[in-house]
């Protein structure tokens, strides 16, 4: 921040004065701020609460409340289509998160020591992959892969000789993962790079002065310091993939439908309590992952003495751009 500080006013004094002024002129303004905040939080949570409440509705019409019941959770979990969708979602989200976290972290480390021109090109692609609307990424990947498969598949068929069961490339888990990894690698890269740039270099230098190898320095000094960003990146990548509809709908093949695709298809026919039960379970799962991540980072922060944004997933997300 380029603004010059004015040291004459101590923060405590400034705070006190602001409060005094607030009481004199702006009691109503303060109350309005508070009321606005309450309303916004209510607005943000209303849809979540509604879905969860209606998942426990006994009535089979989702919007009429008749009584409490947990039968829809059982029904949803016994549904073969839902089971398959959960399996697909977990496969896609897990492999996406592993690959994106690895690639993003590697790139962030590599970018520390490249010529400015190469770094600029890399940055440009990172930002483009994030700011191009998701639907454009989805459709461009679809036509690119479909075209590439049209070229490769006849060759593959030729190699394998005759037979209808010859191995062919097509849409499925791999195409969904490939497209998700693009966006998520950029996210992880930004998170890890932000952490790298705020990292204390003296420990790394001390480690080299003590003749540690680069690998040992990375393992014992750099990696532990980067861990919060890597964990946050992994969780972000996992939930993004687990929740994604647009890219997945373009790149899924037969049999690789994920939970969001199932939910979207159901919703188009009208909301059912079973859909709400699936949704409530997804909420529980994603909020659970976030809170576990938050807990891990807070524990790590206590151990390493880190404070502020590094201690929470929330802090990392709000502060990385």
């Amino acid at each position, binding site marked *: *921040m380029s603004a010059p*500080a*004015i040291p004459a*006013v101590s923060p405590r004094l400034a705070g006190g*004065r*602001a409060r005094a*002024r607030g009481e004199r002129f702006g009691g109503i303004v303060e109350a309005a701020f508070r009321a606005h*905040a309450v309303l*916004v*939080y209510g607005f*943000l949570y*209303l849809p*979540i609460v509604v*879905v969860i409440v*209606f998942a426990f509705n006994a009535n089979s019409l989702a919007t009429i409340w008749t009584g409490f019941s947990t039968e829809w959770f059982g029904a949803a979990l016994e549904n073969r289509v839902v089971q398959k969708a959960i399996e697909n979602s977990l496969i896609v989200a897990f492999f996406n998160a592993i690959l994106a976290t690895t*690639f*993003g972290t*590697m*790139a962030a480390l*590599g*970018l520390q*020591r490249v010529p400015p021109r190469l770094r600029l090109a*890399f940055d440009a*692609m990172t930002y*483009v992959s994030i*700011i*191009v609307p998701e*639907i*454009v990424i989805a*459709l*461009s*990947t679809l*036509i*690119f892969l479909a075209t590439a498969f049209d070229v490769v598949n006849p060759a593959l068929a030729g190699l394998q000789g005759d037979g209808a069961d010859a191995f062919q490339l097509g849409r499925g888990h791999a195409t969904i993962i490939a497209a998700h*990894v*693009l966006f998520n*690698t950029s996210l992880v*890269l930004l998170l890890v790079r932000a952490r790298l740039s705020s990292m204390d270099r003296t420990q*790394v230098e001390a480690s*080299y002065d003590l003749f540690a190898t680069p690998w040992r320095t990375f393992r014992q000094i750099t990696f532990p310091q980067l861990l919060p960003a890597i964990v946050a990146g992994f969780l972000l990548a996992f*939930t993004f993939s687990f*929740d994604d*509809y647009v890219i997945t*709908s*373009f790149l899924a093949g037969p049999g690789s439908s994920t939970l*969001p695709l199932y939910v*979207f298809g159901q*919703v188009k026919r009208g*909301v059912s309590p079973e*859909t709400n039960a699936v*949704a409530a379970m*997804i*909420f529980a799962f*994603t909020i659970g992952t976030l809170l576990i991540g938050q807990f891990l980072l807070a524990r790590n922060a206590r151990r390493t003495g880190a404070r502020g944004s590094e201690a*929470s997933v*929330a*802090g990392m997300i*709000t*502060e990385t*751009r």
Partner: protein
Amino acid sequence: MTGPAAGRRGPSRSSIATGILLLPAGLWYVLLLVAPLLIVVLFSFGEKARNGGYEPAFVVDNYGQVLARPDPFLDSLRLATIGTILTMLIALPLAYFLATRVGGRKSLLVLLLVIPFWTSFLIRTYSWLIILGPRGAAGFIGDAIGDPAFRILGTEIGVLIGMTYGYLPLMIFPLYVTLERMDRSLVEASKDLGAGRWASFRQITLPIILPGLITGSILVFIPMMGEYVIPAILGYGRTFLIGNALVLDFLEARHWPAGAAKAVGLIALMLISISAYLWFLNRGRRTREVSVL
């Protein structure tokens, strides 16, 4: 910055290591970002193959179609602009409140903002079907104004509520971060010099938070321009935005060239509107550069 390894280990070994580190991400960027985007541009000049897809050709007909039927583009631009302004109006007081008035509970309140943003966008969107439906808000308002046919779903209002709701956190985060880092003593100084609340907001706070406001607007505007899920669900597909047109072209009509031209049109429209916005904000300001991200 040159890492210590570069100096100690000799350039060749270190640059091989750097190359390996950058390889997977670089490969992904080239194969799944640059190549696909180039192919979209190429295909936008092609023709539809007989059974769908792409047939090589060089025609500008697809762009002619975009210009002949600009409605989805104009509707997207209009709704994304209104939506961005709405999120700004809602986010600004909240971010200000969180950054200056909350004190110790700050991290809890920020976590509470991240949770809805973190959970499924699709589910949070369809939940408005229940809230705004005939047995929810629409029915309630309909009774109050004596119009039983009053509806919110299937109208642009429903879509706007969904968009504002869905992308609000993306406006709050950058605003909160800039306000949080702001030097509050400047505001105090302006007040000591006799500036009123509004004057000190306009002359001190606003210029400082402008970068956050710009980041927030762009983060919100872009997904709103390409939105598909919200108009499909809350607009019943009647609000037909660019996203709906793209899904129709690619997944149903399989007219790839027409869709590719629309995708190029969407990117162009986005770049033009964002440049115009930055130009408008920079106008009259002396030298300060405004960066996008």
